[in-house]
């Protein structure tokens, strides 16, 4: 989905004051702003606040007790592992794809860009399903894998694969427009002056795209740690083994252990808040860099 949902470059400095004639009357501005703020309060702030309210409902001790559970800790470990593998994998891919797409011209380029965005158009549930069809017991490689005693579905590799699929486009789509806008002049200059390809990449390209990369990594990581539908299909929900944090939240919730569920959920809510803060920070830094240039 070639969406504009998160693009570093779209951010511009806030609009300067409007000319008088095109300003809306004060009461209109107040009314619309109030409605907008109420909408944000009810639809966005309230759900976020309720996560913490529910998590601390039975006090701070009950909250921390929720983490004193080997299954919770193993869920946290698995979530971190899935992110630690899938984010760098998609980072390397994103940089390679952006290099090929923005520094060279070749036939089929726009098709390639569309295909990279494809995972965003696929329902997370279907993202899980496709790996079951390939690696599951009844799947293409199912019997071969079971003969060799390799488990992918209902095991950690399946979770990592599903996570990689749903976070696939994040880094690529962030830096492709950025590198497109920057062109190839600086790289040509470096090569002409005798730098090798890798030197050019590390010393010229990378410093130019560092904020875009950082931005993509933040978003990729948030999705990787929070993914639910895709990992739910491939996980098999084995407690202490194949549960990530979101899956553990579901299990606790379905057992009516609400404090435990919301306590685990609060970890992810904190991650979301950190993500939003870092995202705003990068946008601000990027603006600054652009203003100086």
């Amino acid at each position, binding site marked *: 989905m070639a969406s504009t949902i998160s693009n570093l470059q*779209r951010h511009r400095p806030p609009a300067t004051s409007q000319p008088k004639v*095109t300003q809306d009357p004060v009461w209109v501005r107040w009314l619309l702003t109030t409605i907008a703020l109420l909408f944000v309060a009810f639809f966005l702030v309230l759900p976020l606040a309720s996560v913490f309210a529910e998590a601390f409902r039975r006090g701070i001790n009950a909250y921390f007790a929720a983490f004193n559970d080997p299954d919770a800790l193993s869920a946290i470990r698995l979530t971190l592992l899935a992110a630690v593998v899938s984010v760098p994998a998609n980072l390397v891919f994103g940089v390679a794809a952006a290099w090929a797409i923005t520094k060279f011209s070749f036939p089929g380029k726009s098709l390639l860009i569309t295909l990279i965005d494809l995972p965003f158009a696929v329902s997370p549930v279907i993202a899980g399903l496709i790996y079951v*069809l390939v690696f599951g017991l009844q799947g293409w490689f199912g019997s071969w894998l079971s003969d060799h005693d390799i488990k992918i579905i209902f095991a950690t590799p399946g979770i990592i694969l599903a996570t990689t699929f749903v976070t696939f486009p994040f880094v690529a789509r962030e830096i492709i427009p950025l590198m497109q806008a920057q062109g190839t002049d600086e790289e040509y200059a470096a090569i002409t002056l005798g730098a090798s390809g890798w030197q050019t990449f590390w010393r010229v390209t990378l410093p130019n795209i560092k904020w875009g990369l950082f931005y993509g990594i933040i978003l990729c990581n948030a999705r990787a740690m929070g993914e639910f539908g895709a990992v739910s299909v491939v996980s098999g929900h084995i407690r202490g083994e194949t549960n990530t944090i979101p899956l553990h939240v579901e299990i606790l919730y379905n057992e009516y252990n609400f404090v435990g569920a919301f306590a685990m959920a609060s970890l992810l809510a904190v991650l979301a808040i950190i993500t939003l803060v870092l995202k705003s920070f990068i946008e601000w830094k990027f603006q600054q860099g652009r203003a100086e240039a």
Partner: protein
Amino acid sequence: MSLFQSRRSALPGFNLSLGYTVFYLGLIVLVPLAAVFLKTTGMTWEHFVQAVASPRVMAAYRISFGASFLAALINLVFGLLLAWVLVRYPFPGRKVIDALVDLPFALPTAVAGIALTAIYSKNGWIGQYLEPLGIHVAFTELGVLMALTFIGLPFVVRTLQPVIEELEPELEEASMTLGANRWQTITRVILPELVPALLTGFALSFARALGEYGSVVFISGNMPMRTEIVPLLIITKLEQYDYRGATAIAVVMLVSSFVLLLVINLLQKWSRRYHRI
């Protein structure tokens, strides 16, 4: 790969970067996706139709497409309002609100799901006031709508914001100078300018809602024929080891998503051309 050797670039790394890109794309995305379509080729046409058009599946399409459509409509209205206010009306805390718009994108769907359920259930912050009025949100169609509206909001706002930012002030000034009042200027000059972006935002929000699973399953109650969405039905079939049934429904959803993707790409092309004039 050297078949496609680039004509103009003297930069190194073309074969390596494109080769790796195509290899990784195929490995993670294309080959597994192809599995879905290949799996259905093993089915007879009758079986396929039976799997994708049984009454329970049809009911799931209705709720998934219907609720996604309504949610996208709600987001269209409030997303436009929010984008307009964020771009045009400076107020203290605007930056914070602007950052918060991305919350549905950053908050894991399962967390959103249980949070919304907590708020709208009988004893919840909002539910306790709605239940006496006879409005039930949790475990009804309305709950599905709530969840889908929540996750789709950023798409409309983020698509509109840059377009509103780039509206030429001269356009509005000219309209006012020629005697139009503010309302006429908005409905006849500004809104038509926003149409491509509005449609794009709507389509993105709709597409996202169609595939959504995590935020819906907690609040919907998952009653077959009433609040069961298509992604949930796929999971149910998988849990019953009905791989063919699950795959057949998945093919229908994938084709719908790809058509939407195509529409969105065309809309964005149109939008870009529209604004270059």
